[in-house]
């Protein structure tokens, strides 16, 4: 796997590129607390700054997105 730009210790923000998202909902299957599929069949991020205990699920959601539309970025507001 490619190196995770965000190490496990720092808070992250979940960012989705809606132009890429197709609503396949793999992320929703992995982390339903964070991802949902909305009216227009695009992902809706329910929790943009999930707790650090969810890091494993978030990485799996990023990895498994068929369109690679999800990224985790450092959240400067919380560092």
């Amino acid at each position, binding site marked *: *796997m490619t190196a995770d730009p965000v190490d496990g210790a720092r808070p992250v923000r979940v960012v989705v590129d809606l132009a890429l998202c*197709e*609503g*396949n*909902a*793999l992320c929703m*299957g*992995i982390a339903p607390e964070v991802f949902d*599929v909305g*009216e227009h*069949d695009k992902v809706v991020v329910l929790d943009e700054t999930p707790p650090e205990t969810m890091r494993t*699920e978030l990485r*799996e959601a990023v*990895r*498994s997105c*068929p*369109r*690679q539309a999800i990224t985790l970025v450092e959240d400067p507001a919380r560092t």
Partner: protein
Amino acid sequence: MSAMSEDDGVEESLFAAKDRFFGIGVGADVYGRLAELRASGPVHPGSVSGQFGTVGPDNFLYPEDQQVTVVDFDEIEAAYRNPGLFSSSYSSAPLREVIGRTILEMDPPDHQRYRTLLQGAFTKKEMERWEREFVQDIVADALDPLVPLGRGDLAKDFAFHYPITVTAVAAGLPVEDVPTFYEQAMLLTNAMFPHEDRLRAAAELGAMVERLIAERRQEPTGDLISILAHAEIAGADGGGTQRLSDEEIVAFMRLLVPAGAQTTYRTLTNLLYALLTHPDQLEALRSDRSLVPKAIEEGLRWEPPLVSFGRLATADTEIAGCPVSAGSAVNLCIAAANRTPERWSDPEEFDITRPTLAHMSFGQGNHICLGIHFARMELRVAVEQILDKLPGLRLDPDCAEEVRIDGVLARTAVSLPCVWDVPAAEPVR
């Protein structure tokens, strides 16, 4: 005994012939062999069927010495995500001449234009409408006649029938044409059948769909043919829009039976087999219905309907250090990926309570199954109605026949003899 009409015999024999081609009846220890392969290396020479000494669609279509089988999760995922190097034109050889050119064999940029267009017909929201308008009813029509009997074969009498009806109704075909539609689709998607029979079936199915397209272009009804007939796609040059031609819609309809109905049938029989042979998990599912989606995903991971999917290498390359020459068929073995011990603990075990990790059963990357929401919805409706209507469901203890999931390239429990409790009839007043 079938719960459906007498003329099912024709369809079932065609289907049995296709099943044999996919290695059903061979009784191969598929997962034992795949575990050996995985332990000895990520890439192996030859086709998947070749690993089992059988002939299937993979080594029927491509020479055994010009293909490799990939069994490592990470390498399979990487290959699915690299359509420039691993082309979906693999699917042209078996299908182009009889089915026509479909999204299955397309690479970027054409693939994305078609995908965008088709996606609108298979969204999660659209599936909620299908469920409400006809799927619940079709599943009930297939299951309800079995309920008072207290016993039946949930593979042959139920799972075999309802997905094809759902698919045909969703498409917009008249219900009375479903058996014909099915028979023709079986003929034209099986490369083993005589070529002239396949071409004739393709032409007849084409004529049936073309009549419907003409009607729907005049007056759309909301079915799949209407949606496809009116959908607009960005032009190849980036400017303007174009619509799907009749020929393109017909080709897509020919693909729907194998891609949609047969995979759902196989997946449901495998999931039911898993639950019936793990009665504690079946009971857990009964008492906590929120586990149904997890059970469906675990069933898909543990026993995917298709063992492998192919790509063609577009250039000389290597996979995990193994040289692969341009033009080679690259078999991406979904079933091997799904039991990777580095990813799942006790991967050979069926366990609906395990944490959800993405499996490979819908593929990955740009070609990930277009019907992902369709399949999940159809499976959920069937499982929920079974739990509701068949209390005490268990394998028939008096049945001498061995019950198992079988197949080399496609996996199915072709027979699931079961018994269940029949509620006492209400006294008539």
